[in-house]
């Protein structure tokens, strides 16, 4: 059984259709990269998968480990092992990063009928995960993302991912705006979590990330559809030629004869 099977997914926000029939299948152990120009619907796809109610699904289906994903509330999706690393992580003043994670992890463990972790167990567990993303201890105690730099916020997302131990992680432009050191830390974090049971969908605007997180499959999304899929060479081709040729090719195909 595939881990994730998206079929003809259509979604809109504020009366505007953004996803216009997305098909995507992810197997356990795989890393998929979704690339594409701005406004092509990459982030919308990530948010629809995580259950953002700002988007309305109008057609298609998403099957996640045999379940209808679209039927589940966002928190149930998370408890079932889906994780979304946000493009713009949200600041939550007054809520400590580490205690928040403990509450989140325990909600997930409870759902999986595992025992809740107490404070001591959790701290030991978290210390281990911090090393993965070279998180500073002070960022643990601070309120969630409050006053974090852009790079710290992205690293914190990877840290949350490491702690919550997802089955399928969707990374929404986690690399955007990062300097090379931060990018390597994020990539190292992801690579260390790669396993046969876990899968990643890495959404990115830039090919650079894929030098550090080597994908199994690369997809190109244009105007709400995946228009091309291939191996990691596709990313290199996009790097050289940009997206323009793909958009032109599509326009050529779609344009009525004689136009």
């Amino acid at each position: 059984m595939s881990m994730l099977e998206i079929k003809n997914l259509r979604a809109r926000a504020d009366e505007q259709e953004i996803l216009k029939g997305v098909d995507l299948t992810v197997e356990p152990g795989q890393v998929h990269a979704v690339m594409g120009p701005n406004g092509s619907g990459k982030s919308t796809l990530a948010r629809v998968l995580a259950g953002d109610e700002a988007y309305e699904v109008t057609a298609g289906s998403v099957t996640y480990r045999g379940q209808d994903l679209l039927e589940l509330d966002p928190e149930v999706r998370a408890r079932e092992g889906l994780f979304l690393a946000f493009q713009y992580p949200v600041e939550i003043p007054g809520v400590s990063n580490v205690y928040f994670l403990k509450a989140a992890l325990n909600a997930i463990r409870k759902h999986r009928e595992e025992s809740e972790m107490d404070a001591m167990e959790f701290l030991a567990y978290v210390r281990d995960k911090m090393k993965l993303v070279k998180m500073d201890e002070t960022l643990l105690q601070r309120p969630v993302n409050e006053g974090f730099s852009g790079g710290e916020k992205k690293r914190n997302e990877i840290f949350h991912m490491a702690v919550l131990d997802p089955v399928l992680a969707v990374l929404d432009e986690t690399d955007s705006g990062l300097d090379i050191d931060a990018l390597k830390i994020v990539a190292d974090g992801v690579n260390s979590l790669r396993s046969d049971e876990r899968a990643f969908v890495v959404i990115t605007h830039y090919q650079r990330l894929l030098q550090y997180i080597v994908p199994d499959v690369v997809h190109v999304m244009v105007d709400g559809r995946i228009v091309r899929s291939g191996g990691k060479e596709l990313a290199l081709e996009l790097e050289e030629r940009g997206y323009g040729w793909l958009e032109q090719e599509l326009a050529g195909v779609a344009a009525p004869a004689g136009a």
Partner: protein
Amino acid sequence: MAVTVTTPQAVEPYLAHFERLRAHSTGPAELAELRQAAIERFAELGFPTLGQEEWRFTDVSPVTRTRFELAPDTAPPAGADVEPFSYPDCLRLVVANGRLVPELSDLAELPDGVTACGLAEAVANHPGLVADHLGRYASFDSHPFVALNTALWSDGVLVHVPRNTVVEKPFNVVVLGQPGAEPVALFPRLLVVAEESSQLTLVEQYATLGSGRYLACPVTEIVAQANAVVDHYKLQRESIDAFHMATFQIHQDRDSNVSSHSISWGGGVVRNDVNAMLDGEGCEATLNGLYMVEGEQLVDYHMRVEHAKPHCDSHELFKGILEGRSRSVFNGRIYVHPGAQKTDAKQTSRNLLLSPEALCNANPQLEIFADDVKCTHGSTVGQLDETAIFYLRSRGIGEEAARSLLTYAFAADIVERIRVPQVRRELEEFLFRRLPKGDIVRQAV
């Protein structure tokens, strides 16, 4: 705008109360004159109406329609009843139904030279202090409830900290309403004098024992003389049947620093007038607050910060959380006198509406008569951020808990500013109790 006129019938019972009190009151002539002037002014002013600018959102007709008797000399509450309000490591003064109860108070660790006692006792034992300060700051000229308190108070608290003295332990003044079968009115009066270069922390708690309608009409005057530091907290957690009409008056001399946090979640109709007069150069005043109301509750904060001298800073940050059909009023006036140059005044009020039927009226008012000043104000009214809710849910937190966490987060910067751990804990515990899935919030903060 509709103008309703207070009927003489509403005022008369209070005039009768005054006459009865006067018949058996002792004390210095100046005090009697002050009370007389106050009741006369009250008779002229009558109760406020919605037609008056300062009261246009706060209908006090439930107060004026109710016949309140002066709170009788009931038996003082049992020690166990006061226990929930008795913070450890504090100097405790308990005022029940308007009268200080010495047997429930604990002043064993009051430092030498510092005075803390009932106000009635102070009139007898410290007449100079009372005459010098009482009623000098809280004006009853335009405020009928201040006039009523000034005319009708029978007891309260005096705290006096002499020059260069630092009182480490907070004063915990517990003001209890003990309503009975008939509605009663309490007029507790607090006077706090911090002399030059002294320092003190004062907690005022307002709470209810038992049930029944009553009116709490307290007036607190705090004088911070030169270079004094005062840290003040007010916790208003009375029953829903309480009307709370309070005035808090701060008077600051040069280089003094007063901070106040006013927390309000109790009472049916609550009005807090918070006034600070910065009457010397180099003063700093911090006036913060947090209120959380539900059902049909109304909470009204009327702030007035007066910059009378140059080089003073004032900061105001108020947060309101409204549920159900509750309403809040925030009226923030900053008045900069001519010549009060280099004034730095900042005012922020934020309201979070958790229900479509909740309503907030926020009204900043800046009156500036100096030309080299910095005055800013900001006011927001909004709902929880849906993106933030989604963010929390995407981590496995349920929707209700996510909303509660964000509500807590909204309140957090006031919670974190509270320096008295007992008060801070009290507020945190309230939020954990009140917010749905509070156990998850407790775990996550």
